[in-house]
């Protein structure tokens, strides 16, 4: 069906149904891919804040730069370098870096079966590796997959059943399975009756068989209805658990960042200052004793 006149790529029915955007794989929106490195840097977010890298550049150039230039003595310069350089970097990128690191570790553990990170296909190399490949003969390949945190709002869509979903519980479960979750474990967390929980436990463990057994078997219709009823709630147990699991890396991220910035770096600064002062006073003492020596020499 021809919709409009301006198709750059021939859009026919065959292509439409294989459209990547609807396959469950997320391609970064074109707006992101077609930007070059410089354009990516010189952007403001929708809320008006600078992008993180631009922020760091600004802080180094103006905050540190001016502090260094207007510093009144060597000691202040040293303090600025030891204290402020790592502080700025950690303050800007600390929380998301630590959060992602811990999330990845948690997601990989198969104990809980929940998903709270999404794999995003990263089809393009960034500019710098491309340049290295082209001009210096390196052979960097694009990373196949990238794990990225899902936002709380997306998490809600993932774990709360919507009656409008045309593919029903089967499609809902398949979506969770596709993202790497274990559907049986997820549903086991719901507040079902004892009888229903036992019935659920008898079903197979692996995703495909579980979904098939649950949705295709006539005997399980009551169970399906129950599960849907629980999943439709705003505060269902599966959603709550997923949110808690997602919150843990964030909490750790904040705690570690705050600890590094508020405790470790100032202590380090004080320790270094005291060490240097001790050395200086030791030097002063030895200078003093040197200057007194000639008068002590007996005539």
């Amino acid at each position: 069906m021809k919709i409009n006149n301006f198709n750059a790529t021939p859009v026919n029915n065959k292509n439409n149904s294989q459209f990547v955007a609807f396959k469950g794989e997320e391609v970064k929106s074109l707006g992101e891919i077609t930007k070059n490195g410089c354009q990516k840097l010189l952007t403001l977010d929708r809320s008006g804040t600078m992008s993180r890298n631009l922020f760091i550049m600004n802080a180094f150039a103006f905050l540190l730069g001016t502090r260094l230039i207007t510093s009144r003595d060597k000691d202040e310069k040293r303090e600025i370098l030891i204290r402020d350089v790592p502080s700025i970097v950690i303050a800007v990128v600390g929380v998301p870096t630590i959060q992602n690191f811990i999330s990845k570790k948690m997601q990989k553990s198969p104990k809980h079966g929940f998903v709270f990170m999404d794999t995003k296909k990263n089809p393009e190399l960034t500019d710098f590796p491309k340049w290295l490949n082209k001009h210096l003969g390196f052979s960097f390949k694009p990373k196949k997959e990238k794990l990225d945190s899902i936002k709380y709002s997306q998490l809600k869509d993932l774990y709360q059943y919507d009656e409008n979903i045309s593919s029903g519980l089967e499609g809902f479960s398949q979506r969770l399975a596709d993202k790497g979750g274990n559907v049986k474990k997820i549903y086991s967390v719901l507040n079902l009756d004892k009888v229903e929980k036992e019935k659920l436990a008898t079903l197979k463990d692996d995703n495909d068989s579980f979904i098939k057994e649950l949705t295709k078997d006539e005997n399980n219709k009551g169970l399906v209805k129950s599960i849907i009823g629980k999943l439709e709630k705003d505060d269902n147990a599966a959603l709550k658990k997923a949110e808690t699991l997602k919150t843990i890396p964030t909490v750790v991220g904040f705690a570690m960042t705050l600890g590094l910035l508020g405790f470790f770096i100032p202590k380090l600064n004080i320790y270094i200052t005291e060490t240097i002062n001790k050395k200086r006073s030791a030097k002063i003492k030895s200078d003093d004793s040197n200057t007194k020596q000639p008068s002590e020499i007996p005539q």
Partner: protein
Amino acid sequence: MNYGASYRKNDVSFGSSGGIKNTFKSLPAATFKLTEKGGFFLEFLIVDALSMIAPRVWVGLNRDRDKTGQINIQAGMEEFGREILSGPSMNLIPMAIASIAVHKCMPAIKMDAATLEGLNQHLKTIVDENPNHPDLADKGKLNKKLAEKLFDNTFGGSNFDLDNKNEYKNEFVDLLGKSTTTKPKLALFRKLDAARNNLNDYDKAEKAFDNLIVKINNKNKVKDVAPDNTHNLSLYNKKGPHDINAKDLFEDFRNYSKDIIDKFVKPDSTKGNVERFFEKIEKTRKTTKIGLAVATFFAVGGFLLYLPKIYQLSQSSPAEQSAERAKKEALAQGGANEN
């Protein structure tokens, strides 16, 4: 019957969807949901306030307290002044400048370049279909045509199998029209209103639009898996599909209408060359977007350059004063040893 009653009492769901334990568990999640909504600005503010401002001021006040026996007010004040002015201002200044630029100068610079291209492409198609149509001079009617075209391209193809497509289309067009006729409050007030569930017309329409997109995505019968990112829709431009969040599109449509459609409907705006009109629009908006980032970069820089003059209260820094005290102490000790 009794058995049934006691069975219900033992029902696992009783008390576990409420109760203190779950409130305790959900409190961190609720707090961090807020920080996620607040984005980089709020995250940095919390980190800055708790880890840099508070401890540094405390350390400054207590600097050499063991030697002088007093709170070191100068050190404390300098730390406070420096941190409170530098940290948050690095985000507040760009936000203020961006807000002024978007509301007063060119509303269209807020959207992604790909969104602008996509909307332009749709408008161009409408014009090409019938260059002399009288509706092209009427802003309200042109808004409606654009919304219709958006729906057709996004949901009209064979990758969306829906019942009642026309009903959805009418609602889609109606709500997008509301984005241009109602006005949003300032961002801060909107957040407070949302917290109290007291939305104005713009926010209500935005929420309804978001719900509509979710509904359409879920009801799509083509897929046998529940859809990903139900809050997103695809905007087609020359280069391919561009995923955009429903609420973002709602705002972008309003800005597009305010900026570009407003200019387009003026008599003799395109001067006969429609293609050139849109090219110029795209170029100026893209350049202004980058220019805005550069301008805010230097505005923040300028403020930070001026900052030391505000917080430096004496000639010698607290660090130097500290070193001098240590030196005096060392000399005094050396003298005592001599005696």
